[in-house]
């Protein structure tokens, strides 16, 4: 369906790729709701995926006591909710990530403060 209007209703979308200095990537850490919501980050598409856990996420999630305990080899990744195997050596773009993609990671065995999923 479309908007009911008296005249043509067609306006530019505000959040297209061209309007940002870098594509946006949304990232969520499962079972850790101490961080109230997933994050939104503009990240260079040529950044290697492997730089996420080492260079980007510590500044984002480092406050949580579980973060230091993460074994990144065991981490399960999801893209748009479906299991996904990124290649850490390849860039974000070569891993198929485009503007406004959403990825999540699960850290088996780590379930937040006293197992509260927080």
């Amino acid at each position, binding site marked *: *369906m*479309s*908007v*009911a*209007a*008296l005249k043509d*209703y*067609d*306006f*530019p*979308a*505000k*959040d*297209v790729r061209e*309007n*940002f*200095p870098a594509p*946006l990537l*949304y990232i*969520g850490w*499962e*079972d850790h*709701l*101490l*961080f*109230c*919501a*997933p*994050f*939104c*980050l*503009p990240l260079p598409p040529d950044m290697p995926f492997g730089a996420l856990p080492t260079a980007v996420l510590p*500044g*984002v999630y480092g*406050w949580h006591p579980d973060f230091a305990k993460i074994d990144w080899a065991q981490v399960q990744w999801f893209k*748009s*909710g479906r299991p996904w195997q990124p290649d850490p050596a390849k860039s974000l773009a070569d891993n198929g990530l485009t*503007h*406004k*993609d*959403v990825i*999540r990671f699960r850290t088996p065995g780590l379930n*937040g*403060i*006293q*197992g*509260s*999923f*927080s």
Partner: protein
Amino acid sequence: MDTRVLKKKLGLKERYAAMTRGLGWQTTYQPMDKVFPYDTYEGIKIHDWDKWEDPFRLTMDAYWKYQGEKERKLYAVIDAFAQNNGQLGVTDARYVNALKLFIQGVTPLEYYAHRGFAHTGRAFRGEGARVACQMQSIDELRHYQTETHAISHYNKYFNGMHHSNHWFDRVWYLSVPKSFFEDAVSAGPFEFLTSVSFSFEYVLTNLLFVPFMSGAAHNGDMSTVTFGFSAQSDESRHMTLGIECIKFMLEQDPGNVPIVQRWIDKWFWRGYRLLTLVAMMQDYMLPKRVMSWKEAWEMYAESNGGALFKDLARYGIREPLGWKDACEGKDHISHQAWNTFYNYNAAAPFHTWVPSDEEMAWLSEKYPESFDKYHRPRLEHFREQQQAGNRFYNKTLPMLCTTCQIPMLFTEPGDPTKICYRESDWRGNKYHFCSDHCKGIFDFEPEKFVQSWLPVHQIYQGHCFKSDVDPTKEGFDPLLAVLDYYEMNVGRDNFDFEGSEDQKNFAAWRGETKQGDRT
């Protein structure tokens, strides 16, 4: 001398007819459809505008008289409150943060409602509807003014209220109420009435006003209570307009039913999402609690709203699509919202805090299914860290829902451990949502919602810095630049209540050395 003409006094009914229906006419040199282009394009068919009934039969002359009397009483109380330093009588300086939320997020909506009803009234060719909209438009302007006057007294003594109009158009969480109302005022007149008069005023307004006003009464804030009383008789008129307008549309043409149902689905959900702010205010921000959000929801939404939708079933209307999910959320949303403001309190011009042990015991009692299991451990961890000098301030911007613009803080219906993610593709772009219902609203009108002014995205696009700022300069701090653009007083308007200027001042004024000793 002329013969004296006997002045015939009109009866109540005739007077009402003369002062409302008598004010309209059929146009002659322009077609009616050209003079009133907005009351047909939404697809709503009206066959007989005279069937519109106004149970209050209020006319403009009587309206001014009533409102003038109420106004005089209200300002007498506000003056007395100011002269007696009423602000010192509130339970605790934490209470004032509920007023900050009110002046920042609710009062500007009154002004939007004023504009919306002025515009909508002009759009209807039926005089009854037009007069009702005109009165409500003036009511809303009055509410905007009286709230501003009542709360301006607190502004002299507390932070976080000095720039509420400026913040409304800029600060991240205020885009939630702002976008709600802009969605409504940019819709057609019938959708506007369904959104504001019916879904908001009729179905949900008790959940906004009762908690704020009885919260004020419980916490010693007589000035806000008096405002509430002064607005109450207006609110009952507004609710009547809401239900009248729905019944009128449904009775006029069977083709109107599916359109109205879709609007009810949409606006119930949008209103419910907006009330998340009230839920958190009620459970966390009132030093003296009235009732929990969950109890308020059960009383005002589940039992009253349930009866309403049973009543509307004879017109072919069912309960809103999001009803069950909204009822499920009553155990969770206040805690999730408070956590969000605790996270982002560096960027919000009011204070947050970890509830005291006594308050947490109240929350455990009111939320036996969810509080101890999911929320208490986090709050205790926050408190422990804060006492160790490591108060958590989240500095990374969150992902927002494209429709309601709230950070994606809501969990899957039935699983409070999992954030609810939904997405849509439209014209080669991805859009994300907090729920099936926000996604459904987008999917029906994507052309409208692709224009959403999402604060996080606007910051990343560089639109939330002052014009003389150079983001390429060394040492540029984007967060501070955004707060400067908000014109927040960093260190006074924001951050934890513990250690705030509000806390210190209030204690000093009351002659207490330490106030808010809560642990």
